[in-house]
């Protein structure tokens, strides 16, 4: 084994090192969400703007851009998921339960991170099959000529909207603890900045929740674009 692989092993095998990877990959995914949301909201600007944006994503860097982004995001996702599952298993092994359990101040969101995370993972897989791989041949046909219409048709299904809403709500919960945790794990939180970080974390989670939910809700309930 060469030196650089060994260094990574050492970092991976330490508690703080693994958490650092969770924080850094989490940061990439958090920032991706903002970009993804900004692009998605173009659907309210109009069919032309949204389709141009979709076209731009696929032609960026002669078509390589989207694949670079996918590779980076997939790598981050895999590291984030593998590390958090490993940490959760270690944590469970380290902590015997009290007969009379009590929580002093830990938020509900912080206590269900692994479950909100795994649900989001299931959603991401579904979401990719739905809108990226397009396993539905009807939807795939529409997407070739009009991505805007693909979104409208995709969100005309009640079950899809329901799963989307559940996943976005859990994502909001995940972010409300996760964003603030990034700062603490990277060592950037202090008593002075803590209130600001808490507000930023909850605010960001709320913006992501409202932003992403607005699209399927507008299409399904308010017949936007239909």
């Amino acid at each position: 084994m060469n030196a650089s692989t060994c260094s990574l092993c050492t970092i991976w095998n330490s508690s703080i090192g693994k958490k650092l990877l969770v924080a850094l990959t989490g940061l990439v995914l958090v920032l991706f969400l903002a970009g993804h949301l900004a692009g998605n909201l173009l659907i309210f600007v109009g069919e032309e703007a949204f389709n141009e944006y979709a076209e731009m994503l696929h032609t960026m860097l002669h078509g390589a851009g989207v694949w670079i982004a996918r590779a980076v995001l997939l790598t981050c996702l895999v590291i984030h998921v593998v590390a958090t599952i490993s940490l959760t298993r270690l944590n469970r092994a380290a902590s015997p339960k009290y007969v009379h359990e009590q929580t002093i101040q830990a938020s509900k969101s912080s206590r269900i991170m692994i479950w909100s995370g795994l649900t989001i993972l299931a959603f991401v897989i579904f979401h990719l099959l739905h809108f990226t791989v397009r396993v539905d041949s009807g939807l795939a046909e529409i997407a070739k000529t009009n991505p805007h219409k693909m979104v409208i048709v995709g969100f005309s299904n009640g079950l899809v909207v329901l799963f989307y809403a559940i996943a976005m709500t859990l994502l909001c919960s995940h972010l409300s603890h996760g964003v603030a945790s990034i700062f603490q794990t990277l060592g950037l939180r202090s008593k002075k900045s803590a209130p600001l970080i808490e507000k930023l974390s909850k605010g960001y989670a709320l913006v992501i929740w409202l932003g992403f939910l607005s699209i399927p809700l507008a299409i399904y309930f308010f017949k936007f674009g239909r």
Partner: protein
Amino acid sequence: MLNLTLKVWRQKTPQDQGSIETYDAKNIPEEASFLEMLDIVNERIIESGGEPIHFDHDCREGICGACSLTINGVPHSKEKGITSCQVHMRKFRDGDTIWIEPFRARAFPVIRDLIVDRSAMDRIIAAGGYIDVRTGSAVDANSLPIPKPDADAAFDAAACIGCGACIAACKNSSAMLFTAAKVSHLGHLPQGQPERDKRVLAMVRQMDAEGFGNCTNQYECEAACPKEISVDHIARMNRDYTVASLKEQLV
């Protein structure tokens, strides 16, 4: 006078399964401390020929860190900034049921009843919680200038009495607050600088080796700490460890 029901963890040996036993604690004076209440209950158990409830205690004035009771699910009780021995019975109401369990963590094996083995923390200190300097007569207090904020931060961290409540309160039994307080205490001072990287690496590695869990930033530790030590020290240790680790691995 208070009449209480106690639900106490009883465990004969480290290997024993252990279970909750119920005791009636009648006629407990309100001015008694929590440990005095246990003393009264124990005297009655001894009088009736039973084995008293074993628990750790020493100074009984909140500074030694020996007492280690989880009272109603919270290490040192839900009262802020105090140890178990500083909990007073006037905080309870007549007819209350009180759950008393040991400080739980896989790395804190139960020795008997409410007594746990906390020597894992000593081994973390032994791994690097010191400075290698020649001892002897103390140097002049002002010969080494230390900025007031640094001195204050070091002192706040040094207030840790090593009771282990942070670990017992943590959902993951993580020892991050304890270790961070010890790392920060010396890391804030000029005397601690030469071994700053070596210290944080050694102490975190020992912490991992002892089988403590990992921090999930829920700050239960800070809320349970009898000395109210801030999780700022954990952020600082994360920073120190990252820098030291990268230097060690890549530079």
